[in-house]
């Protein structure tokens, strides 16, 4: 009964989100598309960073490759959007296998640095490829339909969350969590760690690439600096950590809340917005280091003392 109620509530929330663009203003719909897409990125990061414990700072590469794959297919080969999107997703996923096999041998900070390097270099590489429009980038055919893009983004987020939900109860997901907790122990317990890590990376890449493809068609152009923006990595990591890494809904909630916070700050106190954004994150790290979802649970069991306990635990 309780479970049915929960699923019902979830379905209602998705329907409510789906109806939103038919009610609110255009600018809010545009905000919604951005927020949903970045939530997909956060959810993708959750698979490799939250579940598998590999802190990737290179998922923007897959986002960019998805954008470019879609753009090249549409602008250079006049393929329809659906096909182009698929192509972008395939390119992003293949890249995850190619880069993942060597990079996922590195652990902890070394892995993070390697992915950071990847994200720094990829834009420069693409800027030298003629078919990708070199430095200038590509213009995609114009399609006006913010509502459609909104629904697409929402659909992708539902898919991403569905995948993570499956991870949270499947054998595969248990394997990833074991890798996060102790990779050596996971190995001697019969888990094919190399395969699992690469697959997790590929899932993250697939989701990021599709998000990139949708974004590219929506804003109708791609360029190296915009599509391979490194700061995107930091944003998805912060959002996932803010919401609760390794949980099903944490990254979604974190992404939506932080997107809203930064949007409000940007419109109300434009010049110092990023300062306030930073302040919010610092507070979050101090008072809720394990994410929003943990706060909800912690406050329910131990009230306000939850925050004090966190501060003591981390010796702040």
């Amino acid at each position: 009964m309780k479970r049915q109620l929960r699923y019902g509530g979830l379905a209602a929330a998705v329907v409510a989100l789906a109806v939103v663009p038919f009610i609110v203003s255009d600018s809010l719909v545009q905000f919604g598309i951005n927020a949903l897409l970045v939530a997909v990125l956060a959810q993708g990061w959750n698979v490799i960073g939250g579940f598998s414990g590999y802190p990737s700072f290179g998922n923007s590469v897959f986002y960019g490759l998805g954008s470019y794959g879609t753009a090249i297919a549409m602008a250079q080969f006049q393929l329809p959007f659906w096909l182009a999107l698929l192509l972008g997703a395939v390119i992003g996923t293949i890249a995850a296998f190619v880069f993942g096999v060597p990079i996922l041998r590195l652990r902890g900070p070394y892995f993070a640095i390697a992915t950071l390097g990847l994200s720094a270099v990829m834009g420069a590489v693409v800027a030298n490829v003629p078919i990708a429009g070199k430095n200038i980038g590509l213009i995609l055919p114009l399609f006006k339909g913010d509502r459609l893009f909104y629904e697409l983004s929402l659909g992708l987020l539902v898919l991403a969350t569905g995948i993570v939900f499956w991870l949270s109860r499947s054998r595969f997901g248990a394997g990833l969590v074991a890798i996060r907790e102790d990779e050596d122990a996971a190995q001697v317990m019969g888990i094919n760690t190399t395969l699992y890590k690469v697959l997790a990376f590929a899932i993250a890449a697939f989701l990021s690439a599709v998000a990139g493809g949708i974004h590219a068609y929506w804003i109708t152009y791609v360029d190296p600096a915009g599509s391979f923006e490194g700061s995107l990595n930091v944003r998805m990591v912060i959002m996932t950590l803010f919401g609760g890494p390794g949980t099903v809904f944490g990254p979604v909630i974190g992404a939506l809340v932080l997107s809203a916070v930064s949007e409000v700050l940007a419109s109300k106190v434009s010049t110092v917005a990023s300062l306030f954004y930073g302040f919010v994150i610092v507070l979050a790290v101090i008072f809720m280091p394990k994410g929003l979802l943990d706060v909800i649970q912690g406050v329910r069991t131990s009230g306000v003392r939850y925050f004090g306990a966190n501060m003591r635990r981390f010796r702040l």
Partner: protein
Amino acid sequence: MSEALATAPVIFEVRKLTKRFRGLTALSDVTFQVSPGEILGLIGPNGAGKTTLISLISGTLLPTSGEIFFEGQRIDGLPAYKRARLGIGRTFQVMKPFPGLSVLENVTIGALFGATEGQERKRARAREKARELLEFTGLSRHTDHRADALGGPDRKRLEFAKALALHPKLLLLDEVMAGLNHVEVDEVVELIRKIRGRGVTILVIEHVMKAIRNLSDRLLVIHHGQQIAQGPVAQVLKDPQVVEAYLGKRRQ
């Protein structure tokens, strides 16, 4: 090697196993066999190469040369996870629980991925099996506690339960009694006997002499990576080379 040994059934065999780390030879030409259901004690001073041997068998390290056979199949080239699925379980000297997971989840993972015959691919079934093993190892009251909240002796029990969840035929125990008091040592000895009673073959590294003497059917002694003695417990412990390795030379 005696006639009797050569003809006894063998579940596990190591032939001329050697491991070098750059210039350092950690193990050289180690050769032995284990019969099904046997408890083989592996002793030797610190740094003798005991843990290296266990790591070579479980696959966390690859040998420089030599061969390892398990149930007639050569396994020294297989990755660790495949060896685990064949039925080789190990514990770690520096214990490796999955710290953030509950005790139950820790053991469940073993049941999900272990040896093919005992494997439960569904989480719910694997959890049931894990509960059984928590009962068996005496961890039931900690089922829902986080693994990193356990005290020393219970962590050892968790290592056991995790390794057993694989449904192993061969269990490699790396100093599971270190740091335990007399009562706890006796409990662990009892537990190891119970595991053998289930038909599991066991290779145990130990420094607690009283325990290993009680427990082992045979002893293998390693010193500076060399195998210096092998055979029945009483005989090996009287061996002058073994005595020298442990106590040093008698002054003339």
